[in-house]
């Protein structure tokens, strides 16, 4: 599987390209000269101390935040003020949030079918059938008729993943998907994400789960103060023999 992925990657164009991208919140320079390419089917894990701009980076990729300088090209589409382009990119990227952000007034089923019906114009039958398949994939088909408030955190996050997948995106963005979960629920969500990674989904994952990074990531990047300080395959990253950038070393010492 891994080898196959490598081949596909080698022959393909990057699916996400950031070139010298900069972003400010007022006077605060959050993202500095970010240059990054992500290949199709690649799993990229982003780590770094709190406030280093990890969330902002992946939120720029689907235009939840606007970058002010440089270029972002997603799936061959340039991200600019063109609303048509933004809509197209959002159709191709799914996002999973730390706080789940499920719609509390809709059932699990309606949460999942809403966007495919409204945005992709699927018939309800098709959308519900697809939703059931996805619920089975995240192993909670029996929760379809419940409301989000009636589910545990882990179940809610799995619904959120199913909801994002229902749009059949080419890219999935995860912003600390397990940080709001109790320890015993973290595994069930990580398992779903592992399975998704194996199936060939392009994934950008902000996480503090180093086990997940080591096992699943194709590449890890370390961010600090709005910069990509270091990047490399997880073997290198977590190997004790490699000499790291001092900031990376400090962070790894704290977290491992």
């Amino acid at each position: 599987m891994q080898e196959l992925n490598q081949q596909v990657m080698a022959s393909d164009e990057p699916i996400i390209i950031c070139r010298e991208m900069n972003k400010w919140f007022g006077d605060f320079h959050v993202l500095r000269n970010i240059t990054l390419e992500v290949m199709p089917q690649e799993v990229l894990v982003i780590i770094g101390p709190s406030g280093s701009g990890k969330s902002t980076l992946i939120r720029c990729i689907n235009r939840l935040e606007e970058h002010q300088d440089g270029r972002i090209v997603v799936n061959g589409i340039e991200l600019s003020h063109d609303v048509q382009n933004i809509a197209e990119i959002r159709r191709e990227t799914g996002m999973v949030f730390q706080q789940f952000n499920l719609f509390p007034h809709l059932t699990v089923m309606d949460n999942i079918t809403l966007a495919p019906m409204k945005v992709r114009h699927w018939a309800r039958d098709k959308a519900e059938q697809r939703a059931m398949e996805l619920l089975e994939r995240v192993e909670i088909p029996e929760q379809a008729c419940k409301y989000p408030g009636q589910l545990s955190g882990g179940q809610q996050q799995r619904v959120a993943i199913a909801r994002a997948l229902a749009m059949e995106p080419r890219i999935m963005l995860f912003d600390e998907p397990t940080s709001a979960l109790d320890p015993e629920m973290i595994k069930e969500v990580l398992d779903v994400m592992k399975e998704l990674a194996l199936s060939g989904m392009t994934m950008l994952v902000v996480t503090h789960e180093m086990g997940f990074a080591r096992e699943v990531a194709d590449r890890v990047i370390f961010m600090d103060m709005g910069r990509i300080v270091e990047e490399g395959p997880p073997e290198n990253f977590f190997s004790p023999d490699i000499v790291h950038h001092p900031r990376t070393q400090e962070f790894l010492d704290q977290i491992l």
Partner: protein
Amino acid sequence: MLESQSMERPADGSPPENLLPAIFRDGRILQGIAQIIFVAIVVLVLNNLQTRINTALESTNQSPNFEFLQNRAGFDIADSGSYSSNDRYIDAFRVGFINTIRVVLFGLVATTVLGIMVGIFLLSRNFLLRTISRAYVEVLRNTPILLQIFAWFFIVIFALPQQQQSFAFPQEGIRSLPLMQYALSLFVILVIWQATGSMRRPAWRNGIRQVSVAVVVLANLLGLVLVGTGTPIEFRPGIYISIKGVAVFELIPSSLFAVWMVFVVVGAVVAIAMSRYFQFITETTGKPIPRTRYALLAFAGFTLLGWLVMGMRPTPSVIPVLDESGEVVEMPYDDAFESGLLTIEQELEYTRQPLLYRPPTLDRRGRNIETGIEISPSYLAVFLGLVIYTSAFIAEIVRAGIQAVPRGQLEASRALGLSQGDMLRLIILPQALRVIIPPLGNQFLNLSKNSSLAIAVSYTDIYQVTNTIINQSGQSVTGILMVLLAYLLISLLISLGMNLVNQRFQLVTR
């Protein structure tokens, strides 16, 4: 610790000794006893109060009864329609009740619309709009409503012209309008709208549409006549505004109204059926259909069709009318209409229109209104005071309701690619309304109860009228009781309505 606690208990684990038998330590029974005692006290107090009041009233020969309501009222009421001082007290009471309802009903609708608008402005990204609406809210909700009602009253009294110099809309006179050009302009806009409909870039599409509409509208507004010639049209004012209040045109249902209503109702039924059908199609095939637009078109079509069909009704070939010299002559309906000799009854009977338009007219001295709807300065003051005061509170409720929807909900909607409209309709509104509706109901109740401040500007609402009735008849207890019941009725109706609406939105959660 644990041991020292268990020390107080007997070694065998049975509960400690107690003075009361078990039955008097049962929480449910204790609650029951408390309630019985409470009810008993209330009944005793009320009973005592009633006996005292009765004795006091009997000693002055005013024991409460409802028979006095049948007596002649003997006082006039402004804003009273067909009521006269020869009618009974009960009629006066009814007039007051209707006047209260007039203020409350229209007031609720107006304050809701205004409040929602200002509430949305409070959240606007436009600095000016946001600041102005914030100032509006702060000034209005921090000053007493009684003062505001007075302020509106004095604005009407002092700022508006005498009746003889009323503001009139539209200005009376004959003006020449290029009707051909108007029709053509409309057509051009429709064509551009349709032609740009398939454009891929919304920014360009909207740009082209806005620019072309602006150009066409501006050309027409500037009086540029490029196509055809002007048609002279006589304008008669439909609205007069003066120190005596506002006079507005009337639309009176004619003999054709009922038949036309059949068209309207059928149109509504067809529109609903179409909307349901298109929704079904969208659900089964996924194909998006602008069903609301089609339904509205169907409804408008039927309404218009009815109007046109009614226009084809034959009118009597001859009709007896009084000519200028006061003699009865017979002439064709249309001739009689042209020469203005028809009585209103005849017009209503034989017209080809379901609704007759009657502009407001003043009597010969220019003092009183003969036809049309008259709105008194008192009504305006109470209406504006209540509506604008309450709208400030509603604006805050709406703002809070929208802000109560977490940012994450918007982010999730955007990340899924939902359009702005879908996000507002399907995600934000259902969640905001849950928060908005209960306090909104409170504001509705406040408005209805505050309407009793009408007495300050002598608007003849139920409280003002009943006050007069009490002063004249001495029936204070009965009078107050009736006002109380009237307000209670209004409040209960509002509560009932709001509860029904509330249930609909609460059910959606869990």
